[in-house]
């Protein structure tokens, strides 16, 4: 793992990719150069700018372009911090710290099934785009509650070269139902999950019952992002606390105490 980089990054573009959901591209060459899928960064406004949310917020690295030094983030409006990010304009500066944490570990040659719920899609955009030029087979399942929340499929294809199988709970677009329904384990794939806790719990049960390998990316409130504050703990299988910022955010399912 590389030492994290602290840098100011200029906003290159921000486009609305679904209801209250944004695709942000920033110029951060050093982070683009070293990030691996599943890692995240802390994005904030620094200490001298007036009137920003105070603490930085964690976001999965959603995509990189090493040639142009671009990092892409998928941002869904949730509270004050994400709403502020959604109002960024080209040329604005963000203070980034990253890449942080442990990413996905993909055994060579194994097919992967990425299961993304909501903004849990983000790390898989990066993963799929990285796999584009390799022989590895990446299947992308993506679930949302309703059609208007679905991240622009044209943009997904453009970023990753992969066509996602979209599920919506109300069937308003893509397939009707839960994203789990679409998982095919017949070729013994590695399952990767990122999304809301209920989805991860269901996915773990699914994988356990079928004996499939599973890695999940978890979300917990963070202070430092680099392992010093102990703010971001999740319960480990031996009842100890694991720091999701350095020991995660990606864990093997076997490391965690389920349900999480």
């Amino acid at each position, binding site marked *: 793992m590389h030492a994290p980089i602290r840098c100011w990054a200029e906003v290159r573009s921000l486009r609305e990719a679904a209801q209250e959901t944004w695709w942000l591209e920033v110029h951060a060459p050093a982070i683009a150069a070293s990030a691996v899928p599943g890692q995240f960064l802390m994005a904030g406004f620094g200490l001298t700018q007036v009137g920003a949310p105070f*603490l930085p917020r964690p976001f999965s690295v959603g995509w990189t372009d090493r040639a142009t030094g671009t990092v892409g983030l998928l941002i869904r409006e949730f509270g004050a911090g994400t709403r502020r990010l959604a109002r960024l304009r080209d040329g604005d500066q963000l203070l980034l710290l990253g890449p942080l944490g442990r990413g996905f570990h993909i055994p060579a040659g194994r097919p992967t099934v990425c299961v993304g719920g909501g903004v849990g899609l983000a790390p898989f955009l990066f993963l799929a785009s990285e796999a584009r030029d390799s022989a590895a087979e990446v299947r992308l399942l993506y679930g949302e509650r309703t059609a208007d929340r679905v991240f622009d499929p044209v943009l997904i294809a453009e970023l990753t070269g992969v066509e996602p199988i979209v599920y919506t709970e109300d069937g308003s677009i893509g397939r009707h139902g839960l994203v789990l329904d679409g998982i095919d384990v017949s070729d013994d794939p590695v399952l990767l999950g990122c999304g809301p806790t209920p989805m991860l719990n269901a996915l773990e049960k699914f994988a356990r019952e079928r004996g499939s390998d599973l890695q999940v990316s978890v979300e917990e409130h963070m202070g430092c992002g*680099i392992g*010093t504050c*102990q703010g*971001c*703990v999740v319960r480990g299988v031996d009842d100890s606390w694991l720091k999701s910022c350095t020991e995660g955010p990606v864990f093997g399912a076997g490391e965690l105490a389920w349900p999480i």
Partner: protein
Amino acid sequence: MADLTQTVLGVDWQSPVLLASGTCGYGEEYAELIPLDRIGGLVTKAVSLEPRMGNPPHRVAETPGGMINAIGLQNVGLSAFIRDKLPWLRENLSRARVLINVVGHTEKDFVEVVSGLDDQSGFLGYEINVSCPNVKDGTLFGADPETLAKLVAALRHETERPLVVKLTPNVPDIGLYARICEENGADGLSAINTFPGMLIDIDRRRPVIGNVSGGVSGPAILPMGVYLTWRARQATSLPIIGIGGIRSGSDALQYVLAGATLIQVGTALFVDPQVAIQVHQEIDDYCERNRVTLRQLVGALEIPGDPA
């Protein structure tokens, strides 16, 4: 470059800027991000006799102008600290000073941690944490004059190293506690720890923080910290380490003018790890611009109408 050197707690300091306990771990992670040997030093995460599990999540959340935390003093405990953490500090820091933040459930706990550490090398002295609002007995020692007096006296008996007591802000008169520390042999004071606070998720109708309440830190508490430093300054002649909401040289200088010889940067590190270096640099710039040494600024607040 201005003269920011001081002699405090019996040693020379190249910079008044330290990293605050609980916000810099045991130093290692920040060493990758900033040149620790260019600042004054750091205070470790609290060390207790036995390892502590800490509180359930969420442990941190943002508050207006700051944050709330209830880590619950999770730490590896005395033996693992000596085995796994102290060596790095010993081997990797040469100019930056280390204070070890100490907690305990009982006076005996505190004493055993200090006596267990005292013949180790790799650190300067202790910051005694009698002011953590995030564990049941956290401010027990800090808010009761007699218990505090006994504790400080007992620890003084145990060590010749610098003994700094970290005060709680949550008392009507911090001067009383400052004097108690002085009278019982403390070498310095840290002011302040966090304010007890609570955040409620109105949709779930539950506390946001797993521990129900937590400690509030960050810029929001800056004016309180400056005030309490000034009040402590008037009550004792012990050196004071000013803490609370510092994120710039100008914030730090408010503490210095109010009477702090050293200062600590905590929560601001989460926003920008470079803040410690920047605070140092901005103090330097101020001293340079105003042709003063840092020593001349300590406690140099002028109160209009006061006889000079």
